[in-house]
């Protein structure tokens, strides 16, 4: 077990010393993580390994938060953290516990999948009659956490996934995988080939057009336009978060759920990063906001939100409400039918950047390349373009949702300086009258 030797009962009793009021939220967060990286060719050191462990203790009282975090599991680390969160010596009905954690299980050193990926990718490209210089960096991420509160001890949560970054002369690509197999490499090779063929294509003409988004582009759009827009802390920047409930944010074709319990193997969760059970959360049902992404602080503050969406990139970072695994309910048609139905317009298979301004409600999604749609079929490639619009304006113009969902990594979310992997299962989308900029 990752936290063998942790006396959870003693820790729980010790944390209860910090509770003075019925609404106080107290917890201890224990974390072990490992990251192995095989860098791109020619970048010493040749293999890289980070192993971390540590804990954080938190007290949330009304609108005030006191938190202490430290590296490692020193014997007095928990005791010291509890004392410092209390900001005075807590009344000691029983002694504060020492930590006696056993070392984490040794990692297997079979890094073959990481090492082989660049050559597998090169082979896949060669099969497609394409070759170009590229730098491939692969990573394996593992993380184990356990959250203990005064009353509840959450189960140990384990995450394991892979990420890859491919840098070419014209673009940088990233992807997340639950596992690295040749099957997973093929879609990445397809994306690289598409981008390669569009590398010198001129950008499309600015203006209003019909836009068809592929799976990956739709995942980024929903992450920025739905998930971030419906996070309680984003909403709180401009007013009471509960005011968003019931608002018609998108076309009735758009239904979006956040369900960390249904995420791909390796990143599936039972509880969030504050030990609360995750829930299947309908963010949009038929285009209407039904629930908000909330952690305990916003749940306690507003009283109308389910907690269970608290995330943090590591123990030193502040907890905040974030999505983990977005699911868009599929429609009927396949991608070819959607493109055919669009008639004239643009097809964007992927997006590489998104940004939401919570104060204005404007968001931006950037597409590194795309294809012109002429008479219902894909035509010549086009270069980089972007859409900048108010969330509700753009999502209300979704006129079709594809019937074929695909699950995978949506990318890295960097909100608030915390880098978190996000996952999604999305279908292609058609947006009419989208304002395209270059």
């Amino acid at each position: 077990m990752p936290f063998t030797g942790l006396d959870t009962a003693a820790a729980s009793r010790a944390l209860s010393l910090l509770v003075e009021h019925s609404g106080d939220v107290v917890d201890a967060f224990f974390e072990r993580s490992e990251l192995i990286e095989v860098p791109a060719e020619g970048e010493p050191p040749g293999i890289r390994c980070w192993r971390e462990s540590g804990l954080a203790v938190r007290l949330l009282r009304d609108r005030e938060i006191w938190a202490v975090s430290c590296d490692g599991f020193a014997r007095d680390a928990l005791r010291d953290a509890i004392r410092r969160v209390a900001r005075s010596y807590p009344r000691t009905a029983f002694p504060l516990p020492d930590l006696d954690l056993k070392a984490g299980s040794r990692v297997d050193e079979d890094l073959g999948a990481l090492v082989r990926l660049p050559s597998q990718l090169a082979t896949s490209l060669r099969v497609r009659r394409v070759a170009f210089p590229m730098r491939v960096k692969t990573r394996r991420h593992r993380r184990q956490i356990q959250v203990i509160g005064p009353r509840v001890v959450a189960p140990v949560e384990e995450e394991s996934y892979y990420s890859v970054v491919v840098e070419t002369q014209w673009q940088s690509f990233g992807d997340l995988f639950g596992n690295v197999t040749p099957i997973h490499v093929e879609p990445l090779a397809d994306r690289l080939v598409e981008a390669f063929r569009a590398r010198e294509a001129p950008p499309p003409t600015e203006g209003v057009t019909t836009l068809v988004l592929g799976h990956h582009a739709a995942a980024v759009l929903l992450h920025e336009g739905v998930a971030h827009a419906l996070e309680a802390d984003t909403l709180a920047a401009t007013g009471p978060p509960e005011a968003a409930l019931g608002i018609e944010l998108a076309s009735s074709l758009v239904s979006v759920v956040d369900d960390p319990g249904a995420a791909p193997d390796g990143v599936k969760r039972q509880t969030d990063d504050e030990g609360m059970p995750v829930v299947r959360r309908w963010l949009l049902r038929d285009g209407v906001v039904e629930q908000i992404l909330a952690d305990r602080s916003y749940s306690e503050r507003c009283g109308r939100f389910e907690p269970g969406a608290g995330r943090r990139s590591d123990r030193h970072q502040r907890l905040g409400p974030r999505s983990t695994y977005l699911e868009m309910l599929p429609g009927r048609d396949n991608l070819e039918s959607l493109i055919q139905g669009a008639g004239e317009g643009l097809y964007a298979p992927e997006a590489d950047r998104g940004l939401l301004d919570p104060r204005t409600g404007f968001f931006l999604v950037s597409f590194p390349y795309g294809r012109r749609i002429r008479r219902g079929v894909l035509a010549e490639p086009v270069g980089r373009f972007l859409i900048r619009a108010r969330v509700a304006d753009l999502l209300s113009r979704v006129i079709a949702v594809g019937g074929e969902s695909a699950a995978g990594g949506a990318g890295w979310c960097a909100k608030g300086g915390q880098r978190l992997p996000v996952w999604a299962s999305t279908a292609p989308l058609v947006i009419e009258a989208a304002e395209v900029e270059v």
Partner: protein
Amino acid sequence: LTRDACFEVLDSLRDGGLPVVEVYGKEGRGRRHALEAGFIQTQSRREQGWAVRAGDRHCSLFAAGVGLPTTDYAWPNPDGYALNLPEPGPSSRWQEPADFEAPLIGEVEARELFAGIARTLDRELPGARLSLACLDEGSAESVLVSSTGIDVDWRQRMAYLRLEAEWRGARVEAERSERAARLFHPVALARLLADRLVVLEDGTSPDKDRGEFVLAPAVGARILASLEPILIGEGAAERARRVLEGAGRGTSGSKFTVVDDGALAQGLLTAPVDGEGVPQGRRVLVERGSYRAPIREWRFTKPGEPIHGCIRRSSWRDIPRIGASHLFIDSDPECPAGDLIAGVTRGYYLVEVTGQPRVDWSTGRLSVPVCGFHLARGQAKAPLAGAWFETTVSGLFRSVQGAARDLAFLPLGAMVGSPSLLVSGPEIRSSPSR
């Protein structure tokens, strides 16, 4: 204790067959006080970690962990490429600043700082609101030992404050750094926010105009940060050659001198050595408008060239990488900023950037969204907002006519600094040119 543990790991890896070894240990403490979205947060951190680079002529590894460096680590098998480490350099005359020992700011003081800023802001500009305040303060001690004989330690301390304020429809952000949080002055910060809010709310921009420009330190620093691709790294000189088109050579009269100095006295990141243990010092990158050389690591210096450390590792987790530390436009200690403004017959005083500067590296075009004031006969006549300051990189190198003595640094990855600058020739526009 950390040094002993570092040497123990170093010896162990050498005995295990890896002749080139470097062990880096870092220990730090920090506090964060934040007022955000209605929550007040006080967080304290204790961090202790280490990193090892080891290898030989054929392969290498990087490993990092928390706590003290330990030989009880499941080392990955070295792979890939050879690892080269620097030899110890001559010791520099660096002296540790005296204010490292002062305690970090406490919860009550931090809240009083935020309250003071909010109170003054409301007094200066009734209705204005401090919507976000985030104060980070920390100190750290580092140790670096290597198989080539490097054995150094140093300490660093810094406080970083980020503020956001709103008034009517306008919103401004400000970021400032000091050695210690107690050096932040609430009244000065509140006035800065109030000034910016008024300018943004009431300012206008001409469609297109020319004149003389005084760039406040915040504007000069952000422009300099946007030029990092031609100032740092191996490809920088080639990029500079393309955008400067020969204009970067021998431009007499320009006061545009750019320096990087990791050991800058009073600099917030000052340290005797860089992240690989190479002594740091003053390196001139651009001299009076003439491009000299980019920041270049010791591995690529030519024989006879002075070697100054430029490898950054902001945390023990980071792979050491080339970068600037205190990158700044040189100031003129004899020239008060007021003299630059007073000397402008007709022009603009640009006090802040309102978005990211854009550089088109294919054409050398530089566009910076700015706000400030219209100037006439050395006096501010009207606020300026929604404007774009436009020039070319080569034009900027040529056209800096004066630099004041008010050098100030902003935390922009590295500490990037500029004094007030007098620039003639660029344009001001209401929208960026295509």
